[in-house]
């Protein structure tokens, strides 16, 4: 049986870079501070003030990126809406919990409660777009997005869907950042992420092809190599066909060095790219990693700012980029993106 081929038909982001565009590829915004909140577009271009008043900031971002890819892909009602979020609507959760404490669990405002659940994001998109299909939210810390993407791929492979809106959305509050500091977390900078992808089976006008995804829990290096080999074989590729590997190195030497060691064992001399220095770290950062790789394949160039080593040779017309993610040395992910233009 032929495998259902899946393409990224549209993708966009709201992050600490210029929102809803790819300006970061030419003119990335640099930051010197460790905690940065997203740059927001004018939400009124997408959501009326009356509608927006009961929608939290994260939901506005998620809805805006979703509406943008819906518009760009012309897929008004995707067969699936699948969201990955590590913390969900944490800002409203905090408001609700603070109210509970200050009011002695008595006088609670309904709006923060309504907005405080993780699946509010996916359900809001469904209600707003009148899309009453498969609707699922994954909340598994750093691999939330990968789980959402994996589900989408399974639905495509089973030929249950022909389109899926997959999102990766997280916000970062000052109190959460304080907790991160207390436990010694050092992803620099810490930020917010909202990324939406419209996946379809249509190749025309797509950004790139999604070749496959593997998620592994506490694998040995041998298992990682086997999974990588299987992913490549399934796509008719060899390791030498991979133009670049993009990883979630976040500036923390304690975790970056072991990650680079594993990368070397898996990928040898294939150029290494990174993205968290531009977009910051969050539970949804991997969505921005995949978005960055998709941009490189769509525009057929790799911005110099993405190269981890300044001495790296320039990659011309990239054809295949592998996303390699790791979280706490327990959860690993491999996502293959292939160019859908040319070859």
């Amino acid at each position, binding site marked *: 049986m032929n495998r259902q081929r899946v393409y990224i038909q549209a993708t966009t982001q709201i992050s600490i870079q210029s929102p809803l565009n790819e300006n970061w590829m030419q003119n990335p915004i640099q930051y010197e501070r460790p905690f940065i909140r997203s740059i927001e577009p004018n939400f009124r271009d997408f959501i009326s003030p009356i509608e*927006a008043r*009961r929608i939290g900031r994260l939901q506005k971002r998620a809805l805006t990126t979703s509406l943008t890819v819906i518009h760009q892909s012309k897929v008004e009602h995707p067969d699936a809406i699948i969201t990955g979020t590590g913390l969900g609507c944490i800002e409203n959760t905090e408001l609700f919990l603070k109210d509970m404490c200050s009011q002695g669990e008595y006088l609670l405002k*309904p*709006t923060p409660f309504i907005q405080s659940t993780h699946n509010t994001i996916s359900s809001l998109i469904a209600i707003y777009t009148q899309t009453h299909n498969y609707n699922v939210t994954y909340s598994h810390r750093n691999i939330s997005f990968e789980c959402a993407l994996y589900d989408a791929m399974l639905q495509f492979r089973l030929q249950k869907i022909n389109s899926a809106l997959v999102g990766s959305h997280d916000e970062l509050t000052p109190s959460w950042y304080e907790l991160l500091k207390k436990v010694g977390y050092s992803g620099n900078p810490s930020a917010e992420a909202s990324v939406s992808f419209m996946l379809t089976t249509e190749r025309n006008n797509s950004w790139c092809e999604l070749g496959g995804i593997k998620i592994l829990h506490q694998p040995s290096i041998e298992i990682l190599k086997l999974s990588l080999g299987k992913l490549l074989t399934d796509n008719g590729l060899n390791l030498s066909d991979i133009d670049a590997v993009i990883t979630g190195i976040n500036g923390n030497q304690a975790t970056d060095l072991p990650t680079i060691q594993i990368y070397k064992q898996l990928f040898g001399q294939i150029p290494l790219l990174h993205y968290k220095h531009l977009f910051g770290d969050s539970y949804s950062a991997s969505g921005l990693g995949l978005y960055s790789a998709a941009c490189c394949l769509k525009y057929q160039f790799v911005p110099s700012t993405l190269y981890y080593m300044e001495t790296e040779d320039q990659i011309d017309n990239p054809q295949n980029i592998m996303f390699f993610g790791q979280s706490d040395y327990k959860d690993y992910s491999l996502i293959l993106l292939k160019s859908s233009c040319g070859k």
Partner: protein
Amino acid sequence: MNEAILELKRQIIEVLNLEDISPEDIDENAPLFGGGLGLDSIDALELIVLMEKNYGIKLQDPAEGKAVFKSVAVMANYIEKNRTK
């Protein structure tokens, strides 16, 4: 504008997150529900919480709430007569 009505309008704008709306935009005699503000049942709940939290007024009878929330002016008048804080 009466200071009590102005203060109530500010509180309503804050708890209902009515962006782009200033106290002057709200007609104190116009219906709060079914009118231009587009308020719904969740807003009614928010207003009940506002009444109790800010003025110590407990609204338990839904029929009473319907009458109290008729307009900002009616609401302000009710608060004036029934507030405990």
